């Protein structure tokens, strides 16, 4: 079998390329024509004649028709993208995007519609899943149970531990009573001077602390101590500053003004210095109306403060202040005016 030389094959290839044969078809047509040519050579024909015959069969028009036929047949399956991207870089990415565009749009539409429907139907779905008690109810009756609110009682202040008031050492010293002779008890002799040196005379002999008389008893305790030497400390009451019904001088404000005018003496130093003004005396009106703890909280000096306190202490019992109808201790501030004529 005779074979075509390389240069002959090249010659045929160039001829086909010159006629713009589709590159996809070229190798096969080349092979086909070469086979034909070899067959003819086998029959003993010279190559020139064979080539001439070949060009006659595969003339320009035939090859063009072939290319066009081939294109048309395949193009039926080709999409627009294949035509657009023919002879272009398909691996760049745009081709894939274009190819998958339809699918992407379809998926997006399905997802979008699903999402939208879900959004629109959500209230209905929710109502479906969480059913109302009554579907036809317009309003609901709400029953209210009264709640008993108890005021929380303020925690009781821990009772102030009061040390028992120190008791003074005392020696029984009773006023001698005049009795018939048979009733006289000789045991109870008046205390001797030595006993009274370190003790106070009392109704009973108490073994207390010596020399306690140096400590002056507090003012508010003074009357209580007087009333009951060895007694219990008076029950401490709460002291109010503001009460529903203020304490009042027995007889009213005019009576008090008259009392003050009568008892108040302008102190000499104040007169000499020409001092005038108001002294604020604060004191506590006990639930029994007694005045305690009288002090001058703001004064003008020159003996006026002391004078004001003295007169206030002189006052007889007040009408106690009342809180919820119950007499209570009230702290009261009374301004007393000192005015020179």
């Amino acid at each position, binding site marked *: 079998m005779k074979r075509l030389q390389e240069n002959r094959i090249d010659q045929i290839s160039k001829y086909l390329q010159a006629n713009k044969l589709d590159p996809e078809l070229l190798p096969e047509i*080349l092979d*086909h024509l*070469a086979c034909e040519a070899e067959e003819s050579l086998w029959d003993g024909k010279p190559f020139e004649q064979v080539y001439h015959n070949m060009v006659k069969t595969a003339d320009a028009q035939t090859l063009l028709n072939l290319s066009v*036929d*081939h294109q048309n047949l395949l193009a039926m399956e080709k999409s627009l993208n294949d035509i657009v991207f023919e002879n272009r870089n398909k691996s760049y990415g745009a081709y894939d995007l274009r190819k998958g565009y339809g699918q992407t749009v379809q998926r997006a539409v399905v997802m979008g519609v699903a999402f939208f429907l879900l959004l629109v139907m959500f209230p209905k779905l929710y109502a479906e899943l969480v059913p109302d008690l009554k579907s036809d109810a317009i309003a609901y009756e709400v029953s209210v149970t009264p709640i008993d609110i108890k005021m929380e009682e303020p925690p009781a202040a821990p009772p102030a531990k009061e040390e028992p008031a120190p008791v003074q050492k005392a020696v029984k010293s009773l006023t001698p009573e005049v009795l018939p002779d048979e009733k006289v008890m000789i045991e109870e002799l008046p205390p001797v001077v030595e006993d009274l040196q370190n003790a106070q005379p009392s109704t009973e002999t108490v073994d207390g602390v010596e020399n306690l008389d140096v400590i002056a008893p507090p003012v508010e305790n003074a009357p209580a101590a007087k009333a009951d030497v060895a007694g219990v400390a008076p029950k401490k009451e709460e002291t109010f500053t503001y009460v529903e019904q203020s304490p009042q001088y027995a007889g009213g404000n005019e009576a008090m003004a008259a009392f003050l005018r009568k008892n108040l003496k302008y102190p000499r130093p104040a007169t000499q210095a020409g001092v005038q003004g108001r002294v604020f005396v604060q004191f506590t009106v006990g639930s029994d109306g007694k005045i305690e703890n009288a002090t001058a909280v703001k004064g003008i000096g020159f003996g006026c403060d002391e004078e004001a306190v003295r007169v206030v202490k002189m006052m007889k019992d007040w009408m106690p202040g009342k809180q919820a109808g119950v007499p209570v201790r009230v702290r009261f501030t009374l301004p007393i005016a000192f005015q020179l004529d």
Partner: protein
Amino acid sequence: MENNTTSNEYVRGTLKTIVLNLLAEHDRMYGYEITQEVKDRTGGAIALTFGALYPVLHKLEQEGLLLTESVEVDGRLRKYYSLTHRGNETARTKTNDLERFIDAVRLLLAPKNLATE
């Protein structure tokens, strides 16, 4: 020449079936081999031109009925074609269709008195 063009007219419609049928009989074939086979078996009555054959082969390949492999022979590439599984099935159905069609055509072409006999 006149004879050849008329045969080409009929071949055009049956070419696919002919190619598939030939490939079903052989393992693999290349274009020129197919034309030679057709020429030999029909005694030259049907001559396939390369202009008709190759587009059809490419079309069948695109449809997924044919597999191709390129082998270098004598300094040029030779493309061999073989049937895929689906190509085999298609070859069978198409051959059957063509046979029934030919029978029908034969009935039409036969003289009426003969046909009724």
